[in-house]
C-alpha cells in the first residue's frame, strides 16, 4: 500500500489527531498544529497548507482540519514560518536532558 505524497500527509495528520483528540485537558487542534511545528519539515507543512487552500482540506478530519487552518493563518505570508512551538511535549523542560 503506497499513498500519494499529499494523501500520506493527510493520513499522518489524521493519525496524529487520533491521539490528541482523546487528551482531555488539551485543545486538540492546537496540539496537532504544535506536533507538526515540532516534527515536520517546513516543506511538508507548506504542502499540507497548499492542500487546504486547494481542496478545502479534503480528507482532514475534525481537529486535524482545524490544526492545518491554524498553521495557515500563522503564515499568511508564504515565506513566514513559525519557529517555536507553542507547547512542548516535555512539559516546558525540554532541556532537562
Amino acid at each position: 500500500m503506497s499513498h500519494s505524497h499529499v494523501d500520506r500527509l493527510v493520513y499522518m495528520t489524521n493519525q496524529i489527531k487520533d491521539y490528541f483528540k482523546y487528551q482531555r485537558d488539551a485543545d486538540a487542534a492546537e496540539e496537532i498544529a504544535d506536533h507538526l511545528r515540532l516534527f515536520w519539515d517546513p516543506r511538508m507543512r507548506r504542502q499540507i497548507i497548499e492542500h487546504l487552500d486547494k481542496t478545502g482540506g479534503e480528507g482532514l478530519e475534525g481537529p486535524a482540519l482545524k490544526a492545518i487552518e491554524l498553521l495557515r493563518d500563522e503564515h499568511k505570508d508564504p515565506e513566514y514560518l513559525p519557529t517555536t512551538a507553542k507547547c512542548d511535549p516535555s512539559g516546558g523542560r525540554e532541556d532537562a536532558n
Partner: protein
Amino acid sequence: MSLIQETDYGTPRSKSEEMVTLTIDGVEVSVPAGTSIMRAAMEMGTEIPKLCATDMLDSFGSCRLCLVEIEGKAGTPASCTTEVGPGMVVHTQTDRLKRLRKGVMELYISEHPLDCLTCSANGDCELQDQAGAVGLRDVRYGYDGKKHPNSGVDESNPYFTYEPAKCIVCSRCVRACEEVQGTFALTIAGRGFDSRVSASMEEAFMDSECVSCGACVQACPTATLNEKSVIDIGTPEHSVVTTCAYCGVGCAFKAEMRGEEVVRMLPYKDGKANRGHSCVKGRFAWGYASHKDRITKPMIREKVTDPWQECSWEEAIEFAANKFKGIQEKYGKGAVGGITSSRCTNEETYLVQKLVRAAFGNNNVDTCARVCHSPTGYGLKTTFGTSAGTQDFDSVEYTDVIMVIGANPTDGHPVFGSRMKKRLRDGAKLIVADPRKIDLVESPHVKADHHLQLTPGTNVALLTSMAHVVVTEGLVNESFVRERCDWDDFQEWASFVAEDRNSPENMEQYTGVPAETLRGAARLYATGGNAAIYYGLGVTEHSQGSTTVMAIANLAMATGNIGREGVGVNPLRGQNNVQGSCDMGSFPHELPGYRHVSNDQVRELFEELWGRPVDNEPGLRIPNMMDAAVEGTFKGLYVQGEDILQSDPDTKHMVAGLSSLECLIVQDLFLIETANYAHVFLPGSTFLEKNGTFTNAERRIQPVRKVIAPKNGYEDWEITQLLANALGYPMNYSHPSEIMDEIAALTPTFEGVSFDKLDKEGSIQWPCNEMAPEGTPVMHVDEFVRGKGKFVITEYVPTDEKSGPRFPLLLTTGRILSQYNVGAQTRRTANSEWHEEDVLEIHPHDAEQRGIRDLDWVKLQSRSGGTTLRAKISERMAPGVVYTTFHHPKTQANVVTTDFSDWATNCPEYKVTAVQVMPSNGPSEWQEEYDEFTRKSRRIAGTPEVIAAE
C-alpha cells in the same frame, strides 16, 4: 601492552552488607558474610589451589584441591564451599594440606594425556598451573590412565572443539551452561573413569540445544573445550578491552591478540553490562572484518548502471563534494541530507549530524533508530521527561515480577536474556505479552506465569485493560502517584481507564487474550513486589508505538514501579548504539541531548562553537526524504553504516526514492543493498579498527578501542571529516576523544564524560554531570526529569492494516539469535550455519488449509508486494499469525511490509502486515529482477570477479 589477566576469586561475590572478620595465614581480613574462605583468601592476595571453582559459578566442591585447615575444626574442608565465620582462624598451607593436594593432583594427571607441548592450551591451562602450584613432581600411578586412547574430537561447532580425552570432569562447563547461560545443554554422562561431558542426549554440539554462547569454553580449565581460532593461531600475547558492536546489551570483551591478528574475543568480567558473559555474535562472529567481500578502496560512478571505478580517497571525496555542492546550488540547500548509523560510535554519529547541520546547512539528518526506537524517545520524554530506559541491567537481580512485552531477549538480547533467566530461576515471576510463544514462555527451569498471546497490533488495548484492572481493583499506589505525578492528569487517566469499554472483558475481542488471564497478569504486576517492564520492537514498531510506550509508563507510575532498583521501564535497544545515536542528535528535530532545534538558546551554543548558523526548523525524516526524492526536491544523501534499503519498510517506495537521487554516498564495509543505488562508495572501518564509544540500552557509555589498523585506511569519523573539509567546512579533530570533549561541552547530560574518565571508570551511565559525577544507574529516583510524571490517555486506535478476505493472515517480523539486523556482518561468518535463510513460521492449521508442508516454498503476499521463502510449520504462532525474520536480502521481507507507521514518529509498522500465503515453486518476479539488477550494480571495473548477489 600485555595480556590482561583478570583475577579469579574462585566463588561469586556475596551481596551481604554484614561484614565478617577472620584470620587467614595469620592475617586479619574482613569480608561480607556469605563469602567463601577461598574468596576471602584471594581478596588478600592468597591463591588457594583450585580446579572446579571459578568466580563466574557457584561453588561445587568436587575436586578437593582447595582444602584448608580451620582451627578448632576437624578435617580439611574445601575452601570453596565453606563460608567464612567470625573469628575463624584458617591455614591455607600446611604439610598435611600439601600432601593431600599432591595426592589429588596425581590422580588427575595420571588420567590426563601429557601432550602439553603441542596442546593448544599450553600456557593457558589451569591443570598445568595447579600441578605447578601444588608442587607435583612425579605420578605414582603412571601416565596411562583409561582416558588416554584418543576418544575423538567433536568439531561440529564452527567456533570451538570438544576433546573428551582432556576432560577432568570438573563440571565447570555444565554449570556454566546452566548458571550463566541458562540453556542446560550439557550433562555429565557415565560414571567413574567413563564419565564425560555430553551435549544434550550425547549429541554432537551442533545438533544439541547448545546456542554457542561460549560460556563453557571460557569456564573449561583445560583444552577440552577450546576455541578453534586458538588452535589455529596459538595463544594470544596481548589484549585490549573493547565493546561488542552487535546489540544494545553492550558486552565488554577483551580482544585477545597475537600481533595484528585477533585470536579470540573473551567476555570481560568487569564489563558492567555483561558481567563476563557473551553470546555467539560478540564472542565468535567477528570474522566479517576480514571477509573477502569487504571493500577497502573508494569507488565512484556517474550512473548506478555503470560498473564501479576504484579510485583514490582524494578523488572519491572530491567527486562526492562536487556533486553535493552542485545539487545545493541547483536545488537549494535543503536538497541534501545524511543518515547516521546506530552501528557507528557516538563520535562518528555526532560528526555526521554536525556535517549535516553545519556544513550542509539544514536539519535533514535521521537515523536507523527511526525504524526501531523512535517511539521510545517520544513516549518516555512525554511521560517521564527523558528519552531513555530507567535502570541498569543489574537491576533485574532485585526484580520480583518481570514483564516482557514485544521483546524476545533470549534471541535479541541474549546476554541480558541469560541474566533475566537466572533471576527467574531464583524465583522472580514472569509475564510475557507476545503473539509468539517465545523461548522465555517455556524453557528449561523457566516458565511464564502468564503468557498473554495477543493479536499483533493490540498492545494499547492490552495495556489499557491492565490499567483498568489496577484502577478498578484498587491496586494503585496512591501515595507514589500523589507525591511524584501530576494528580490532575492521573485522575483523568484513571477515569478513562476505568471505563467499562476498557475492561479486559471488552478488550478481549481485540486482543484475543482471555479476560481472566489478563486480570491475573495485571494483579501480579501490581502486587507482586518490585515489578519491571522490559520491552522491544514489538512495542515500538506499530502505528500506536508511541502510545504503547506511554501506556507502559502509565502502568509503571500507577503502581509506583519507578525510581529504585528492581523496577522501571526498560527498552531493550536493537543495535549496539541505538541509544547513542539518538543521544547524539541524529533526529531531524533535535540537537544532541534531545534539545529541539527551535530552541534559540541551545542553537546559539552550537552556532558559536560550530561557527555556522543552525536551521531552526525540523528537517526530513527518512520516509519523508524518500517522498521528497520521488517528488524531486531532495537529491543527495550521505548514508553512513546503514542499509536503509533492506531495513526500512516498503522496499519499493525506498527504491523509487533512492533511484531518484542524483548523488547517493554510501559509507559501509560491504556493497550492501543500498549501495546498488549509490554513486560514491566510501569503504568503512569495523569496530576493531577504530576508537570511540558506544552507549548501550542502560545509557552506559563504553569505550571501543582500536586493536588493528583500519583496512580501508581511515576510521569512519575521519572520512566524515574529509568530506566536511572538501565541502569547505573545516573539521580538524585528531582523535575521537576531542569529539567527545565537544559533545560534553555542548550537552548537559554528557558534561562529565571524557575518554580519560572512561579509561578510569570502565563505563559511565549518563546523565553524568556536576549533580551525578559518577553517572546515573537508576533514573527518576526522587523526582522525574520532567518534574511530575505525566499520565497520558491511551485510547486504542486499531491499525488500518487489517486482515480481510484477500489478506487473511497477520505477518509479524523479528530476529533470531545468530543473525544480526540485515545480516551484512553475521551472514559473512559461520553463524550462517545456524540460519541459512529466512523462513516463514506458520501454524499447522493455517498450513494445512493451504496445502503447505514443512520446508515448502511459499509466496508471501501483502498489499505492498510479494516475496517467496520457505515455510516452517510451528506451533509457536497462534493460528492466523505468521512470522519471519529479515536477515537475508534475498527474501526482502520488507517488500511485503507497508508504509503505515507510528503516528508520532513515523517508526514503521513492521509488526503487523495483512498477508496471504500460498504454495509457490520459486522466487517471485521481483526477486529475480532484483537479483539481476544487483548483479549488474555490483560490477567493479577491472575486477573479473563479480561479487555474487546473496
